[in-house]
């Protein structure tokens, strides 16, 4: 029996080697997507990295974009579950169902370019929304996102101001092994460095944006251990912001909290003077203008600079402008759309 097995496997291996040696790779077919579609043929998929309150405005913004720009369909799919492999699976599933333009928040900024490349090879248009790929290359048609380092810098500056220019600062943020978190840490560090040593970064607590309970526990631990030494907390992720606002209020400590985004508890905290400031992003603008740009690209427009990175805006909100902040955000969205028409898109007609 054994000699036959040996002979069989040798012949098999030889056959494989000969077949492999005779093979040549097929010529790459040129990238698809050259065929222009009508607006009615465009089906936009807005795909966040997973379920998170930040992305909820994308649903309404996508729906409004569909009505305003009269394109075929829009869907919102958050089943990726913060796993890049699952997100890739969700994206190909959506493509198989006829969705042909994608606004994506990549789960893994360090490898999302491969996902963009795969989709573009199939002839689809892709916008990187709310987060840009790590590194200096963006293989999506465009990236429309908060400049996270700049937003963290603004937040930390607001914290330094709120604490009177000196004291101890703590930074609460999200997943450490995420390049966006690294950018946020760099933004906060920059603001701290600018104080020339007057402000000390006491701690940077990462990996607490998974859910509200995790964040609340981390804030409670922080306040119990170092509450009396902390002068201000800057948060650059959603759940830690809500937890810090609530935790500091409950502990009745004189700590200035700089939050992120506009959860109702945070806005109420600003109105009541319990939260010093919050840095808002523009998720509505990202989904609305992103969908618009994807439709225009599908209709035959091209990007003047492929892969251009566009800041969707970040806004510091304090008691002074808490009543009017949404006007600024709406104005930014309008100006982003005009910028696409005038600067970023090149259309034949």
């Amino acid at each position, binding site marked *: 029996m054994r000699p036959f097995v040996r002979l069989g496997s040798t012949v098999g291996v030889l056959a494989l080697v000969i077949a492999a040696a005779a093979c040549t790779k097929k010529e790459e077919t040129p990238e698809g997507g050259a065929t222009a579609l009508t607006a009615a043929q465009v089906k936009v998929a807005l795909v966040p990295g997973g*379920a998170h309150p930040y992305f909820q405005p994308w649903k309404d913004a996508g729906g409004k974009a569909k009505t305003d720009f009269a394109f075929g369909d829009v869907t919102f799919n958050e089943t990726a579950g913060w796993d890049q*492999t*699952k997100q890739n699976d969700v994206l190909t599933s959506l493509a198989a*169902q006829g969705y042909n333009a994608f606004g994506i928040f990549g789960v893994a900024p360090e490898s999302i370019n*491969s996902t963009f490349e795969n989709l573009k090879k199939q002839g689809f248009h892709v916008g990187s929304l709310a987060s840009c790929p790590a590194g200096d290359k963006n293989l999506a048609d465009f990236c429309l996102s908060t400049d996270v380092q700049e937003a963290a810098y603004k937040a930390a500056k607001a914290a330094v101001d709120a604490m009177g220019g000196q004291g101890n600062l703590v930074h609460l943020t999200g997943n450490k*092994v995420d390049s966006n978190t690294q950018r946020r840490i760099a933004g906060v560090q920059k603001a701290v460095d600018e104080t020339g040593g007057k402000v000390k970064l006491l701690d940077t607590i990462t990996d607490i944006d998974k859910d509200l309970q995790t964040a609340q526990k981390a804030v409670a631990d922080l306040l119990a251990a170092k509450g009396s030494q902390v002068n201000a907390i800057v948060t650059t992720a959603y759940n830690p912001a809500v937890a810090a606002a609530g935790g500091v209020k409950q502990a009745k400590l004189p700590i200035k909290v700089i939050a992120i985004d506009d959860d109702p508890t945070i806005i109420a905290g600003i109105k009541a003077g319990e939260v010093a400031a919050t840095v808002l992003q523009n998720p509505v603008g990202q989904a609305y203008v992103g969908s618009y740009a994807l439709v225009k690209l599908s209709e035959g427009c091209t990007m003047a600079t492929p892969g251009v990175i566009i800041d969707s805006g970040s806004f510091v909100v304090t008691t002074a402008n808490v009543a009017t902040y949404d006007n600024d955000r709406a104005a930014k969205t309008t100006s982003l759309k005009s910028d696409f028409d005038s600067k970023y898109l090149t259309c034949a007609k």
Partner: protein
Amino acid sequence: MKQEDTTTPEQPRPPARLPLWANPRIGLVVLLIALIALFTTLRPAFLNTQLTLVPMQADISVYAVVGLSQLAVLSLGHMNMAVGRMAAMSAFASGLLHDRLDAPLILALAGGLAMGALLGALAGLIISRTGVNSFVVTLALDFALIGLVSLLYASFTDGVAFNGLPAGMSSLRTDTFADYCAGDVCGPEIPLLAPIALVAVLVVGLLFRWSRTGREVLMAGSNAKAAELSGIPVRLRTIQAHALSGLLAGLAGFLLSANNGAFSAGVGDGFLLPSFLAPVLGGTLLVGGAVSVLGTVLGTAITQVIYKGLNLLQFQVDELKLYIGLVLLAALSLDRLRHVLAERRGVPA
């Protein structure tokens, strides 16, 4: 002189022949075919080659190896809770070799496999020397490695991933055998990752079926005391099984890095659940002593088909989890029912 026994000794009754329905693998194949038929009927896009079948084969390749990694220690009745982090460390080793020493694809792979095998052997050594439960040891190792992976990426890269991939790794991600032709004859639409996983499946299958080491591992898993008394070096076999588990975790990390397009800290994050699901669904016992390599592959395929099918049906995140849970519970219950029926009829299932 001993007198020869002239009476014919009573032959042991041959075991009842396994009927087709009692073969667990047949059951899994039937279930797989039924699921494919169901999802194809509901969504014809399920048979789309480029968008569904090719990505699904790539996912099956990765997760089958993940399942085999867990199967290697389930053979002993042990668990490897660090399967994901061993994959992450292996991916780091591969990335570092390529980034710093410009190692080609094969050397990067070898380095990753060596790292995985070493970590597995370390876990096996601790378990066999201290007698502490494998669950506790590998869970502790997982925690330690989470921290180490973050620290290493922070020290050796700008962010959380290596920028480059060895030449040829992009082809592993994007190409199928249909892209390679000898004259007019091109290969099938099977991704290049698949044969790598197939080699792992064959090697592990042959190891447990034919090799002395593999059989001894299974005997140690079935009854460690009896195995030891029979002269089997149980400690050595424990270390070897864990080293194999680490090596396969390393291979899975390499395949996922190729599939996702980066050696990153996030590799292996989602490995733990599928690592148990596939072998257990495939008929591997949690208590040790029996493994099913083919069952593991079928278990992986069933899980991925369910994921893909539910994704195509656009289930939202909570529904997706609910239905995957229900389908798997139903599959496991049917398998249990089949076992009970087989036992009643005196057939070993």
